[in-house]
């Protein structure tokens, strides 16, 4: 990545250092995220859930990001405006795998949407995770709002927004760059593009002239960089550097991560494993083994353990009731539901 080195202020929220222990934790988190996808894909196939979409291939970058988030509620902490491939981020932040299975199953217990939205459409108010919008790119026009509150508030909290490569064709991406750079009101915002080379069936090279989407930031006077999102160490460093800059300088940064799309777009295209794409977990495992931090066997043990646990989770989820019409009428806050159908008992 090509960030010019800069003197950073001290005292801001620091990225943890990448110790051997942390690397092993990261490894496990990557696997947890991947196994969530395995299980939710299988739920789609077996009719235990409907549409599937998720993040297999984004684990290296996503877990690196999630672990560096300043987690919490309110403008002192980081806001996240995420798209639907962000389970690695959420896992690293500590979200429970079972809750994603719940959303996949559309149970009443789904804490993110109460059985209303598709899987991987999170909303966690306690952690500043704003609702994932199914409309591509709209998160990019909302993110400047939270960042503006943070700018005014002071502190080192920042706003993170991510999305895919194809979606940057929407004007909203440019809007975000513009709002992030108003003179004198530059925003503490990390604008991320997860470039997996496709929008559904359409290759990026067919509809966009450049593979460096982040370069668009240049004309707005915004710093930017491109990183190999399949390389955990590079991703970790790039995020750390960008975040340190944003936290201390209170200015925006645009970071593109080139990632894999290991199971195609979604269940609509079959969700089968794609050959030819780099697997960031395999790559990280090779690193761990090479560095003597783990053995093949140790890695396999983690996979097995995680899969076994997730099986239990699934069993639990399948025993829970689907979301019912009990709660469907909560349109407004602070009021009794105004639209009660005669046969619907209210919570």
């Amino acid at each position, binding site marked *: 990545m090509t960030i010019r080195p800069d003197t950073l202020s001290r005292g801001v929220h620091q990225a943890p250092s990448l110790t051997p222990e942390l690397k092993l934790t990261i490894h496990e988190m990557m696997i947890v995220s991947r196994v969530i996808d395995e299980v939710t894909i299988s739920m789609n196939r077996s009719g235990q859930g409907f549409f599937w979409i998720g993040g297999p291939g984004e684990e290296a970058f996503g877990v690196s990001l999630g672990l560096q988030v300043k987690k919490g509620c*309110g403008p002192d902490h980081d806001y996240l405006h995420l798209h639907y491939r962000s389970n690695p981020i959420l896992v690293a932040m500590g979200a429970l795998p079972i809750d994603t299975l719940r959303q996949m199953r559309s149970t009443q217990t789904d804490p993110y949407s109460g059985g209303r939205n598709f899987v991987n459409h999170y909303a966690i108010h306690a952690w500043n995770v704003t609702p994932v919008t199914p409309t591509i790119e709209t998160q*990019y*026009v*909302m993110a400047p*709002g*939270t960042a503006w509150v943070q700018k005014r508030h002071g502190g080192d909290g920042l706003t993170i927004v991510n999305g895919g490569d194809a979606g940057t064709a929407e004007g909203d991406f440019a809007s975000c760059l513009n*709002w992030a750079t108003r003179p004198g009101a530059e925003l503490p915002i990390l604008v991320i593009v997860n470039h997996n080379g496709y929008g559904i069936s359409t290759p990026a090279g067919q509809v966009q002239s450049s593979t460096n989407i982040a370069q668009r930031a240049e004309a707005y006077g915004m710093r930017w960089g491109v990183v190999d999102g399949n390389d955990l160490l590079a991703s970790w460093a790039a995020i750390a550097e960008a975040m340190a800059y944003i936290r201390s300088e209170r200015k925006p940064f645009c970071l593109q991560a080139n990632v894999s799309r290991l199971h195609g777009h979604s269940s609509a295209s079959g969700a089968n494993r794609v050959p030819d794409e780099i697997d960031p977990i395999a790559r990280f495992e090779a690193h761990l083994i090479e560095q003597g931090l783990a053995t093949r066997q140790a890695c396999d043990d983690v996979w097995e353990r995680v899969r076994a646990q997730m099986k239990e989770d699934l069993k639990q989820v399948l025993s829970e009731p689907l979301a019912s019409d009990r709660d469907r009428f909560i349109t*407004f806050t602070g009021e009794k539901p105004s639209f009660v159908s005669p046969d619907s008992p209210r919570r």
Partner: protein
Amino acid sequence: MATIAQAIRMALHYGEKNLGVTDVFGEDVGPPLGGVFTATQGLETAWNSPLDERGIIGAAMGIAMAGGKPVAEIQFADYIFNTIDLLKLAGNLHWSSYGQYHLPMVVMTPVGAGIHGSIYHSHSFESVASHIPGWKIVAPSNAKDAYGLMIAAIKDPNPVLYLKSKALMRAVGDELIPGEPADKRALDSMINAPVGDRADWQPRWPEGLTDYTIELGKAAVVRAGTDVTVISYSRMLPLCVAAAAEIEAETGIRAEVIDLRTLYPLDMETLEQSVRKTRRVLVVNEDTEVTNFGEHVLRKLIDRCFYHMEAPPTLLAGVDVPGIGLSPLLEDASVPQPAQIKEKILELAKIPA
């Protein structure tokens, strides 16, 4: 006696001082202009946004998510139609996040014809807006209501759309807003920015402004009557009142005129009560007539009191044309005119029971 623009300005001032309003923003909303209709002059929290309606609505949503309380302006409702997807998101985030998020935000925008605005300064918005779930919608017809509805909109923890009639923006009410000086000139000199250089200008706000609130969802019977119910709001409301007065003077027929004030949620009780009494109902607005909000009002009334209706529940609305033409002859032929309102009221009143 304030104009509606001044009433809004004072309510926003009260809001930023007392009700937690953090940002009043939009195109040309901040200094030096203070809004194309001067409604945001002199406010401490007012600022100019980029020329980007999607950015404005998006920013308002983000600000509200992070604990702020924004009042965002779309310069003219004519330019809000590239943001409908965002308005829909704002209206559904509470529901789709299972109640975790709610968006205390106000979006205000000038609507309607009446200022020779031609095709793109004459749009109405209530029909599309009322179809978007999750928004409350208000549309004042006088300065006192403009104040009280803005206070209510700010206090409400949900998204509220505030539709302000362009043509009424300078209309002076006949009721005093609590706390405002009775002398219009005095008020003008206190809170209107001077013409020309205003870099050093500071408003002097009336001291006694209050929390005067008009509860959302409450219509007002502005002229009592027994023979026909006329339901309207915003720019058409004073025209309906005038028509009713003329008709009564000329024929003795007494139309009851109701100012909806809040378009969503509807005050069905007040409406139903009136229609059960008069047994005839006319809705008047200036939006185009196909899938018009007034048709919804009529349908709701039909659901509740069809058997009490002695005449066809009727809509008088804008003609189904692609735009309001600049020539006054075109404009007048496209939106309801006083003579048509009178005619419709009389027509309904004269249908035998």
